[in-house]
């Protein structure tokens, strides 16, 4: 890369303000992108990173005013361009890939037509030539049947495939700059890595510069040569990736880095005789689609799973989407009826007697993924947290009130929140309430289904820390379900890796992370960075490779 050349994109002192309230959402932001370079903008929600990137395309929401600064693309002032020039620039010179592959493709349009649209608009080519180009591009993004894809609809593809198609449609026009706004956030870790590698490969081949916007510092550091860190509208730091990581200057960058999951030394758990929860040969079937007269074939989600959770132990279940990890959690929680197998609580099978079931019911609680949907919107925080106590025998109303206040303090919110409604709280606060509700009955076993994956990075770190603290304080056992290995590395004692409804590997955390044996585990691990602290208060990332890759790269 030649940094002496003129920058392809030059954003200088960009300031954007919301019209009515006058709040500055992007404040005096300057950065440059040189031809062929990959630059990352990192920040959490509300940092202004998306707005700054959209301004480059001339897309500013009507409520937002341009207060000052210039954006030059290829020497031309974007703000001064006519609507017609802007349209020519979008698509043909600057392409954009959005976060949500489910909504960025038109669901009622054939893939072939959608890809052709931009090409027909911006390139003077006849139909057969365009078709050849499209097929070529679909092949290079790794679609197995490009011919078939032309006449398929978006819903026939998985999220990862859709994101590849989206990438193909943008790269068809060979833009000089690609804006990628959280392109892989909606995908699971393995697919995420595949799509990113593909994007880097394709843009390198076409000499396209990339502006990658993401909240995921690890991913940005992996693929970008330079990083811009944004926080609440300000650029707090920018520079070469290695420098930012190894020698962060700004406290916010340090906070982001420390929010990346760290591995703590393995805990020694007391040797236990009976596992608190023992699952044997659990089988779950989902009924096929039913019509009036026909019954679809049942789909087996879990093929005989057996796991043990010891008292006080945190067992993590990891796997990609469709691995059956969520189904496992739900069937252990009693939300999904298993087709076969047995669940034992403290040695007693829960299906056998009502007393054992009830004992289990009171002792097993769950934290759900989405804090926006797991709290009843019509109840106050106090009502929400107090609800599980209704079924606890021998508790006076005064006891309940005291317990709720105690738990709210434990999750770091305090009694002052008790009369609020969930919609008045932030995502992190809501998840704290969900945790409070799960532990208010002092259960001995908690199932946490992706408890932090809907949260921002720094909030995620705080909630994880809280969870860890509470687990140590109350000593409940935990089944921690996650697709994110980084999170698992921080909290788990033992790790179970699942794929397609089966357990493929199981073992103590350090064994799984340091010596993964199964190919799928290696693939999962290759998608997350390992961390090493540097003396300057930063970190160095290292990437694990799968076995067959290792032989190529060396």
């Amino acid at each position, binding site marked *: 890369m030649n940094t002496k050349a003129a920058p392809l994109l030059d954003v200088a002192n960009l300031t954007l303000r919301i019209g009515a309230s006058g709040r500055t959402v992007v404040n005096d932001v300057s950065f440059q992108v040189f031809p062929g370079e990959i630059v990352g903008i990192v920040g*959490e*929600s*509300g*940092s202004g990173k998306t707005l700054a990137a959209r301004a480059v395309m001339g897309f500013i929401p009507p409520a937002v005013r341009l207060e000052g600064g210039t954006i030059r693309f290829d020497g031309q002032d974007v703000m001064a361009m006519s609507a017609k020039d802007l349209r020519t620039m979008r698509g043909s010179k600057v392409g954009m890939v959005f976060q949500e592959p489910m909504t960025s493709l038109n669901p009622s349009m054939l893939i072939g037509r959608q890809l052709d649209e931009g090409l027909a608009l911006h390139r003077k080519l006849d139909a057969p030539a365009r078709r050849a180009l499209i097929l070529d591009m679909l092949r290079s993004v790794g679609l197995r049947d490009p011919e078939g894809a032309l006449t398929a609809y978006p819903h026939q593809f998985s999220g990862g495939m859709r994101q590849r198609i989206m990438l193909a449609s943008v790269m068809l026009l060979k833009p000089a700059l690609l804006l990628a706004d959280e392109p892989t956030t909606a995908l699971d870790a393995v697919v995420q890595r595949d799509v990113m590698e593909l994007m880097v490969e394709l843009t390198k081949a076409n000499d396209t510069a990339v502006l990658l916007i993401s909240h995921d510092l690890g991913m940005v550091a992996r693929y970008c040569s330079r990083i811009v860190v944004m*926080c*609440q509208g300000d650029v707090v730091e920018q520079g070469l990736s290695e420098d930012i990581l190894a020698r962060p200057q700004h406290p916010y960058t340090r906070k982001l880095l420390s929010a990346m999951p760290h591995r703590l030394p393995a805990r020694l758990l007391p040797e236990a005789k009976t596992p608190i929860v023992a699952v044997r040969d659990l089988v779950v079937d989902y009924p096929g689609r039913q019509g009036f007269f026909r019954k679809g074939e049942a789909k087996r989600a879990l093929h005989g799973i057996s796991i043990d959770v010891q008292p006080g132990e945190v067992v993590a279940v990891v796997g990609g989407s469709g691995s059956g990890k969520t189904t496992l959690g*739900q069937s252990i*929680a*009693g*939300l999904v009826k298993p087709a076969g197998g047995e669940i034992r609580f403290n040695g007693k099978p829960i299906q056998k007697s009502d007393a054992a079931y*009830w004992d289990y*019911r*009171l002792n*097993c*609680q*769950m934290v*759900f*993924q*989405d804090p926006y*949907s*797991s*709290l*009843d*919107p*019509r109840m106050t925080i106090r009502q929400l947290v107090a*609800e*599980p106590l*209704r*079924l606890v025998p021998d508790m006076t109303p005064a006891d309940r009130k005291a317990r709720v206040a105690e738990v709210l303090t434990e999750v*770091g*919110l305090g009694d002052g929140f008790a009369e609020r*409604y969930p*919609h*008045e*709280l*932030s*995502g*992190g*606060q809501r998840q704290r309430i*969900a945790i409070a*509700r799960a532990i208010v009955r002092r259960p001995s076993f908690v199932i946490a289904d992706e408890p932090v994956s809907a949260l*921002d990075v*720094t*909030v995620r770190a*705080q909630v994880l820390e809280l969870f860890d603290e509470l687990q140590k304080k109350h000593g409940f056992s935990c089944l921690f379900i996650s697709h994110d290995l980084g999170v698992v590395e921080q909290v788990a004692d033992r790790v179970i890796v699942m794929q397609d409804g089966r357990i493929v590997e199981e073992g103590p955390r350090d064994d799984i992370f340091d010596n993964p044996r199964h190919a799928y585990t290696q693939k999962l691990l290759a998608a997350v960075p390992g961390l090493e602290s540097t003396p300057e208060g930063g970190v160095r990332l290292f990437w694990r490779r799968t076995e067959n890759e290792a032989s190529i790269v060396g």
Partner: protein
Amino acid sequence: MSSDSTVSTGASVKKARRMKLPAPNAIVGGTLIGILLATACTGALWTPYDPLKLSFREKLAAPSALHWLGTDEFGRDVLSRLMAGAATSVWISILTVTLAVIAGTTIGLFSGYMRGWTDRIIMAFNDALLAFPGILLALGLLAVVGANKYGIIVALGIAYTPSVARVVRGTVLSLREREFIAASRVMGNSEGFTMARHILPNCIAPLTVLATSMFGYVLLAESALSFLGLGVPPPAPTWGNMLAGSRPYIGQAVWLGIFPGLCISLTLLGINLLGDAVRDRLDPRMRGSR
């Protein structure tokens, strides 16, 4: 969302204070409905003249100081009849809506919660009823139960039940998939408790909207039935049969039609405005957003 454990309490307090003033639709709707209810209550106990008393000397008199809204073809005082009619019409509408909401909610909750074959059979029947226009269904039912005040309530109540059941079932189905329902089951709550504590309260917002618009429809339907001669039999006044009775005299005594019509329109307007306001008020998420 970046500052996790602190919330700007200042802003929310300010919002809470501003919220004290009711929304304009609540004021206008509340005033209209207040007048209606006051009229209905007064009309049931006292009217300026006896609404049934004939006085052929004064027939078709224009509005005057003596008869504020004029008299009809039998010389009965229009204002008195409107007031007495308000009591009948409002009473019929309230009972009908209550009947339809209770029956429809029960069916919808049951159907949505059971799912499977129970749901299919109930909904097939429900949809068959829904396919008839409400007024047509009510006409048929009236022929069976007989055309009187309670006949109208039962007939219209049954005619409007399917639409309530539909709305409630749809809401229940979407709520069932929400995680807080799963959370309630994990807590160990029984199905019945989950329904009563989590599902029913969350159905209230769509139900309020439906019930208020239904109140209007029922008022209209009752008027239409009376207009067709199938409603409350004369000489008892309702707004509908007053409107019906005004038809032959529209050329000579326009006030006979105008005042009942105006009453019906203003009541509908009031109910719709109040319905919106009530829905916003009942939903905690809407609080503070005004």
